[in-house]
C-alpha cells in the first residue's frame, strides 16, 4: 500500500522526472537511419519583434540629402547622422545606409557578409500605389495598420484572410515526415503557441529557455510505488475517449506532451556544452537554447526544424528613442552570440535566422513616438545568406514621396511573400508545395524562376 511519506517525498523534484529514455532513443536511432537519405540539416529561426518595430530607425540613410529628408520627416524621432554605424557599399538606389548606434554586432555581421537587410517589406495582396489607395480602388490586406491582423498576416502569409495557420506550420504539414516520428514537431517554439508554426495538421512543440527545455508530470515514470501509482492512473485517465472536441484536444495535448517529454529531455541532456557565452537577456537565452537543440538534431532525428522566438514590447507610441536604445542592442547582441554558437557547432551555413514584425511605423512623430505603419526593414543572418547587401528597394525619403499614404506610412516595395519564399525555397519547400505554403505568392513571383530576391545562396 502507498504510504504518505512516499506520496509527499517525490514532489520537490520540480523539473524533470527521472525517466528512462534508453528504449526510446534506441528506436530513434533506427528511425534516423531511414531518413538519412535526405539532404543535410537545415533550420529556419523566426524572430518576431511583436508590437511593430520602428525599423526606419534601425536602418537609416547616411547620405547627407537623404538623412536631411529623414530628419525633416521624423522631426524629434530622428537619429543624428554621426551616431549611425555606416554599412559598406550602397543600396540599389545608390544611397548609403547605416544601422542604429546600438547594433554594432549587426553591422559587423553585415560587413562580414553574414547578414543582409531586406528593405521596406510588408503585407500586400498585389502591387499598389498611393493614388489607388487614395481613390479606394486598391486591394489591400485586411485590417491594415491593426496589430491583430498584421502580426497575424506576417505569420500566415495570407493577407486577404483571417486564418489561424501559419506558413511555418504549413511547411510542417508537408515536410514533418522527413524527421523521425517521435512526437516532436519539426516546429519548436521558445514562445509558446503561435500562428507561424501552426499548420492545418501541425502544432508547435513548446519548450522553455532553461534546463532541458521541458518538464514532465512530477513523479510520472518514477519507479517507486507512488510513481507507479501516478503513471498508471494518469495513463488510465488519458486512455478514456471523449466525445467533446475540446476535451479530446486537451487529452491529446497532455498525452503528446508526456510522451515527447522523455525523448526531448533525454536528447537535450546530451546537448553540446557551448563555449560561446550568451548574455542573460531572455532573447539571448532563447537563442542559446535553440543552439543547444540544434546540437542534438541527430539524437532528435531532425533534418528540418523551424524555431520561433518572440521579443515583445515594440509598440512604441511613446519613448521610441529611449526604448529602442535599450531594446535593439539586445537583438544585435543576441544575433552576434547566436552566430558564434552556430559557427562553434559547425552549422552556421545550415541555419538561417530572420526577423518579422507587425509592421513598420509612421515616419512622422506623435510628439513622443510613432504610430502603426506598413512597410519596414528586416534582418536575415546565416552562412547561406548572400550577406553585406540591402535587398529590395529602400524608398527615397521625401515629404511628398509617392509611396507615402499619410503620416509617413510607406507602401511596402517588397511583399512578405517574396521574403518568405526565398527562405522557404532554401529550406527545401518544393515547387509542388510552395503554393500551399505561400498562397499569395504568385501575385509577385512565378515558382520555378530564380528566387525572388536573391539573398539566399543556392549552395
Amino acid at each position, binding site marked *: 500500500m502507498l504510504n504518505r511519506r512516499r506520496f509527499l*517525498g517525490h*514532489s520537490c523534484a*520540480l523539473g524533470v522526472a527521472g525517466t528512462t529514455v534508453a528504449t526510446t532513443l534506441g528506436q530513434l536511432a533506427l528511425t534516423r537511419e531511414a531518413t538519412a537519405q535526405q539532404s543535410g540539416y537545415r533550420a529556419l529561426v523566426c524572430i518576431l519583434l511583436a508590437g511593430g518595430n520602428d525599423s526606419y530607425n534601425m536602418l537609416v540613410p547616411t547620405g547627407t540629402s537623404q538623412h536631411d529628408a529623414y530628419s525633416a520627416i521624423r*522631426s524629434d524621432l530622428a537619429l543624428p547622422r554621426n551616431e549611425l554605424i555606416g554599412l559598406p557599399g550602397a543600396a540599389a538606389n545608390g544611397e548609403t545606409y547605416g544601422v542604429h548606434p546600438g547594433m554594432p554586432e549587426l553591422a559587423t555581421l553585415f560587413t562580414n557578409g553574414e547578414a543582409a537587410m531586406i528593405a521596406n517589406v510588408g503585407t500586400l495582396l498585389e502591387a499598389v500605389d498611393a493614388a489607388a489607395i487614395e481613390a479606394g480602388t486598391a486591394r489591400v490586406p485586411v485590417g491594415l495598420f491593426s496589430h491583430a491582423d498584421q502580426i497575424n498576416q506576417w505569420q500566415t502569409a495570407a493577407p486577404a484572410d483571417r486564418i489561424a*495557420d501559419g506558413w511555418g506550420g504549413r511547411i510542417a504539414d508537408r515536410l514533418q515526415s522527413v524527421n523521425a516520428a517521435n512526437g516532436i514537431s519539426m516546429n519548436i517554439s521558445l514562445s*509558446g503557441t503561435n500562428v507561424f508554426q501552426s499548420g492545418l495538421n501541425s502544432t508547435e512543440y513548446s519548450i522553455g529557455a532553461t534546463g532541458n527545455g521541458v518538464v514532465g508530470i512530477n513523479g510520472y515514470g518514477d519507479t517507486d510505488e507512488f510513481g507507479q501509482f501516478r503513471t498508471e492512473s494518469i495513463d488510465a485517465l488519458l486512455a478514456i475517449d471523449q466525445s467533446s472536441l475540446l476535451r479530446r484536444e486537451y487529452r491529446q495535448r497532455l498525452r503528446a*506532451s508526456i510522451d515527447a517529454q522523455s525523448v526531448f529531455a533525454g536528447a537535450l541532456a546530451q546537448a553540446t556544452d557551448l563555449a560561446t557565452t550568451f548574455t542573460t537577456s531572455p532573447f539571448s537565452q532563447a537563442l542559446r537554447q535553440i543552439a543547444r537543440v540544434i546540437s542534438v538534431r541527430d539524437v532528435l532525428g531532425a533534418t528540418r526544424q523551424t524555431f520561433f522566438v518572440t521579443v515583445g514590447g515594440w509598440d512604441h507610441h511613446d519613448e521610441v528613442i529611449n526604448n529602442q536604445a535599450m531594446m535593439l542592442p539586445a537583438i544585435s547582441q543576441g544575433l552576434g552570440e547566436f552566430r558564434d554558437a552556430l559557427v562553434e557547432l559547425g552549422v552556421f551555413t545550415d541555419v538561417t535566422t530572420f526577423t518579422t514584425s507587425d509592421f513598420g511605423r509612421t515616419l512622422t*512623430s506623435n510628439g513622443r513616438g510613432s504610430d502603426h505603419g506598413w512597410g519596414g526593414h528586416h534582418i536575415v543572418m546565416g552562412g547561406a545568406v548572400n550577406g553585406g547587401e540591402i535587398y529590395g528597394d529602400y524608398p527615397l525619403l521625401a515629404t511628398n514621396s509617392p509611396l507615402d499614404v499619410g503620416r509617413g506610412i510607406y507602401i511596402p516595395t517588397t511583399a512578405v511573400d517574396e521574403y518568405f519564399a526565398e527562405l522557404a525555397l532554401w529550406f527545401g519547400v518544393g515547387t509542388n508545395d510552395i503554393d500551399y505554403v505561400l498562397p499569395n505568392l504568385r501575385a509577385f513571383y512565378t515558382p520555378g524562376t530564380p528566387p525572388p530576391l536573391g539573398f539566399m545562396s543556392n549552395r
Partner: protein
Amino acid sequence: MTTPQSALHRCCRPMLVTLAAAALTACGGGGESSAPPVTTPPPPTLTRQAMVDASRLAAQATFGLTYEDIESLARRGREAWLTAQFALPASLHRPLIDDFLARRAAGEFDDFEEDIEFLIYFRRLAWWHTTITADDVLRQRVAFALSQIFVVSDNVDTLLIYPHALSEYYDLLQRHAFGNFRDLLRDVTLSPAMGIYLSHVNNRRSNPAANTFPDENYAREVMQLFSIGLFELNIDGSVQTDAGGLPLPAYSNEDIREFAKIFTGLSFGGPNASFGSIEPFFTAPMRMFDAAHEPGEKRLLNGAIVPAGQTGDEDIEAAIDNLFNHPNVGPFIGKQLIQRLVTSNPSPAYVERVARAFNGEGGTPRGDMQAVLRAVLLDAEATAAPGSISDFGKLREPVVRYTALLRHFNVESDDGFIANLGFTLQSLTRQHPLSAPSVFNFYLPSHSPPGDIAAAGLVAPEFQILNSNTVVNFANILDFVLFTEFVTEAPEPFVSARINLDDYIAIADDVDELLERLDIVMTYGTLQASTRNAIRAAIEPVDDNNLRVRAAIYLIGVSSDYAVRL
C-alpha cells in the same frame, strides 16, 4: 528582481525540512473534522439535480465555491442568487493597498526587502486575498472577465512599480461590473493606468510646424477591442459583408485619426496636475488640459460631428456616446462575456439574446450590466443539460483552475490572510490577472487550434496558452497544492495558505460517496462514468483517507472532464 523560477526553488528547500512535520500534522486521518453548521429548522434536502445546477452556475460565475456555498446557492435559486450578488458591496483593493503601504512605512517589511521591493507585490497580494476570500463572488469573477477585455498589464514598468496603478484599475472594473457599460467605457478611457498602457496620457494636439500628430494608439484600440470591433456586426454577432462577400470595416484609418484628436489633452490628475507631467498619479482619473487638446471639428462614426469650440471633456463625452450607441457594442461585448464566463462557441441566437439585453429591450437602460449578466448566465443555452448542446463548453483557464482548487476546499491560513504572489502560476501557465503580454490579452477570442477544432469551424481561445509545456505545468501546480507545502506563493513575513479537506476525509471510507461529492463540487456531475471508474480503481487501494482524497482531487483536476467544462 527575483524570477518566478527562483521563487519556486526557494519554496522547495524549506519544504524538504518540513515535510515530516507536515505529514504528522496534516495526516490527522479526519479526526478533527469540523462540526456541521447549525441551522434551525433543518432545511429540506436538496436534490442532486439542484446541487449540480447550482455548482454549474458557480463554475460559470465565480472563482469556485465550497460544497456548503453551493448548497446555499441551490436553496436560493439562480435568479435570487444573482440578485443577492448584485446587491453586495464591492470588495475593493484600495484599503488593502493603503494598509500595506502604511505597514511598509512603519518598517514591517524592512527585513524582507533586501532583494526586491514589496511595492510590486502589493497589488498581487490584494488581488489574491480578495479573490479567494471575498463574498461578492460574482462581481470578482466578472471583474476578471472585464480585465481580459479592457486589458492593461504590469509588463509596463510604471504599472508594475506603483501599487495603486493596477489595484485602482481593478477597483474601477469592480465598481462598474454591475453598473452601466457607458460609465465603464468612459472611466477606462480616463484611467491613468490605461493612459499609460495605451499612451494617451500626455497625448498632445497636432503641431504642423514640428510635423507631429496626435498619438493614434488609444483611438484604435478603444474601437477595435473595447467597444465595436473591426467589422460591422449583425445583432447575433455575425459579420456584415459587402456585395463581394468581404467584411464591412466598422471604421477606417481616417476615423482613427479623428478619434486620436479627441483623446488629446489628458494628463495625470491629482493635486499638482499639469499637462506633460511624467509623475504618475493613480488615485484619480486623468484630467483634461484644454490648451493641449486638439481644437476644431472632429468627425465621429456614422456621420456624427463634434463641433469646434467644445472643451476636451465635452469632446470625450461625445466620442464615448458615439461608440456606446454603435449597434456593434451589444453583440461585440456580449459575445466576449459569454466566452469568458460560459462557452467558447455560443450560438448566434444566444449572442443575439445577450445583445438585445444590452440594447435595453427588456426595459432596462442600454448598457445595463446586470441585465447583460442575467442574459449571459440565465440563458437557456447556459443552463441546458451539460453535453446536450454539441460543442458547448470551454477550456478552464489556469487562473480559474487554481482559484477553484483553493476556493472549493476551504483555503485557510494562520493569520487569516491568503497571501499569494502568482509569479509561479504566471511563469508556469502564462496567465496572471493584469499581466497579459499585450493589449490582446492572453488569448484571442478567435483563436482556433489547428486540427479537429479548426476543421469544425470552432474557436477555443484558452487553448492558445495550453501548449506542450503549460499543459504539464498545470498538472504540477495541482501536485504542489495537493502533495506539498506549496499551496500559495507567500513572501515572508506572509505565510502560505493551506486547504482543509476534513469534510472530505470524513467521508473517504466510502470511495463512491467521496467521488460523488467531488463530482458535484468540481465538475457539477459531468464526470463521465469511465473517468469516475478509472479514478475509483486508482484510489481505492490507497488506505490513508487523507491521501485518498488528495489523489482523487489530483486525478479529477488532471482529467479532461475537469479541464474542459461543458
